[in-house]
């Protein structure tokens, strides 16, 4: 018996180390979602990523209640993505994009004592992208499929050492689709050439280049577009603000997105000042307009509906309508500075 246990432990250790079982690509493509995240073998144990998962970061990420995000992409063995200058890279069938949301106990030591809340997957099947969300159990050993959304209380000390208590919202599957659809088809948002065109964690060679050099991307042109980092104070203010709006708002606020009817289009390269919101009157903002007349009133952040809705956490007023429950103070400050500088 003892010998059996020792053998089992040795085998397990071997699996856990260099011979970890491969990601179950066939299970990912199965039409029936797995009830447990571990069924896909994307993680070796707990939240330790399996071999083959490539971690990436974005120049400018979506704000989600200050959550730390761990992003990975998994490509089926031998497969690679195809470069596209505009929009999301063209990923092959089987690709799985993995994004975990986590909170440290204290944001002054963000890598320490991370509590993983949920892991969202976007799986590229032959029929298109499918969104799935898994909520982690208390001991962090596995996560369960959650299609209907959930509210999870989370407490942490923020970067200034203040205690924050939030009612973190896990989206339901309709909400996944609402943000992730363009012209009715589900699509990833983050991994565009422009947003990947920067170093991992902001350092070193461009991730586009790294992916091309490791065979995960067919090419990485030298003239690939680059989205500004929203928090890069060396970058031009307008580029940072428009990158922030693109990532946080542009998936809905585009001609093909959920908020197309607003006529407010917040892609970083939208050419029309009126569609960018400059001196644009609201259409269906209702009470959310407050006393302001324009989405963006140059020189007047307080008179700009866009800024005021970002600075609200009240349903019916706040933008985005979901995906956050608290105000992103630093994001609001960036947009205030941008609007104040507009002439």
């Amino acid at each position, binding site marked *: 018996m003892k010998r059996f246990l020792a053998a089992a432990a040795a085998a397990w250790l071997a699996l856990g180390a260099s011979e970890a079982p491969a990601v179950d690509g066939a299970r990912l493509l199965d039409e029936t979602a797995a009830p447990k995240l571990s069924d896909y073998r994307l993680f070796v144990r707990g939240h330790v990523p399996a071999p083959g998962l490539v971690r990436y970061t974005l120049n400018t990420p979506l704000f989600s209640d200050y959550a730390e995000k761990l992003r990975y992409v998994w490509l089926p063995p031998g497969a690679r993505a195809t470069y596209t200058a505009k929009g999301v890279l063209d990923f092959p069938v089987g690709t799985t994009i993995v994004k975990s949301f986590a909170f440290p106990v204290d944001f002054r030591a963000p890598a320490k004592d991370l509590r993983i809340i949920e892991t969202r997957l976007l799986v590229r099947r032959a029929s298109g992208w499918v969104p799935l969300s898994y909520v982690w159990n208390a001991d962090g050993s596995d996560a369960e499929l959650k*299609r209907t959304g959930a509210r999870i209380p989370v407490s942490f000390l923020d970067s200034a050492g203040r205690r924050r208590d939030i009612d973190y919202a896990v989206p339901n*599957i309709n909400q996944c689709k609402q943000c992730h659809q363009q012209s009715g088809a589900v699509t990833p948002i983050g991994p565009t050439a422009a947003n990947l065109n920067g170093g991992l964690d902001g350092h070193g060679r461009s991730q586009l280049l790294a992916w091309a050099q490791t065979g995960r991307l067919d090419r990485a042109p030298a003239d690939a577009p680059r989205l500004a980092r929203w928090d890069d104070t060396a970058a031009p203010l307008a580029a940072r603000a428009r990158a922030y709006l693109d990532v946080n708002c542009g998936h809905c606020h585009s001609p093909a997105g959920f908020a197309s009817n607003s006529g407010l289009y917040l892609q970083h390269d939208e050419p029309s000042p009126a569609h960018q919101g400059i001196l644009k009157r609201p259409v269906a903002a209702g009470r959310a307009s407050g006393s302001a007349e324009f989405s963006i009133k140059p020189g007047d952040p307080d008179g700009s509906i866009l800024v005021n809705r970002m600075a609200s956490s009240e349903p019916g007023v706040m933008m985005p309508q979901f995906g956050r429950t608290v105000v992103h103070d630093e994001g609001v400050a960036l947009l205030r500075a941008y609007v104040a500088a507009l002439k």
Partner: protein
Amino acid sequence: MLKTSLLLATAMFAASADARTISVAAGPDAQERLQAALIDAQPGDVLQLAAGRFVLSGGLSLDVAGVTVAGAGPAATVLDFTGQKGEGEGLLITSNDVLIRDLGMENPKGNGLKSKGSDGISFVNVRVEWTGGPKASNGAYGVYPVSSKHVLIDRVVVKGASDAGIYVGQSDQIVVRNSRAEGNVAGIEIENSYNADVHDNVATNNAGGILVFDLPDLPQQGGHSVRLFRNQVIANNHVNFAAPGNIVAGVPSGTGVMVMANRNVHVTDNDIRDNLGNAVMLVAYTQAFTDSNYNPLPRSIAVRGNRYAGNGAKPAFAGGAEIAAAVGGTLPPVMWDGITGYTVPGGAAVTAEGGIFVNDGPLLNLGLKTHGTPASAARPSIGAARAMATLAEPAPVVLPAAQEARAASKLAAR
């Protein structure tokens, strides 16, 4: 053609044979159970919500085609959003051929029932109400189909919306009937929409009763072919409680019917009474614009055969009192700003094609002539009519027979 019809009939039969009725009761975890039912529904299913109060913590959404969500009546089944913590609407529908019926919704923080991009969306015997009465802090729209096609709003009641009670935006093939809008800023609003029949409704105690608007910089504009008939537009004198930046904040309290921009709008056979401002107001878009594809003028507008009483005694809009005094103390039934021309941004001056046909005289014409002329430059005059001819009406809106039949059917499960 026959083959196609047969195939279609078979498909419909197959769908109905598999259709299920799924019952959902009020009680603990209503949010999760109801949202789960909305996610798990299959085309053809009926979600039967039992009588009772569903206490909800967030917005709900439906993205499955062909689903009916039915309650036990607008007073019996109540979706209560008083404690709503997130999302911009009470129930959001993003799929085709959906019927929402026989239920009530209270105090959504944003909009009540919204459909986006639905083809075949019906709201029947539904109530949306902000129970604290009209307030600026109430949600914006009660029933809000947008970018939708084949829209039916029948026997709907909306009270207290801080924007429009019933608002149809950027849609096509619309019927709003037998409904009641009361105590909202705008009662019923048809905006940037094509082919709408608005009839047999009651709009009362709103700031403005029924509005037909067209706005610039939107994916669908050039609103046209709207018929308002057999409506009761009565005493819409509520103070305008919209947020100041809101476009409807510009609707003067006391307005019965207001048409802003749009082409081919017919206002006929309505009872328009006791509105202290204009019974009927026809105006160009009131703001500057930069959209060269936009036409700010109302054109091909007919106002005839309506019954008026008690309107126009105390207009609330700027200069209204002076104008009323100048014309004998009371505004005549129809006021037109008289704007017939505008300049295309970056382009040429344009004169309106299609006249203003007002058989219901006398007509008060503010004589502003060109878009952008300030109201202070008004040269009001009263003319007998511009009833040169009768403008041909747009064809009645006919919704798909299956949509009408489904909306009219009694549910077997009840």
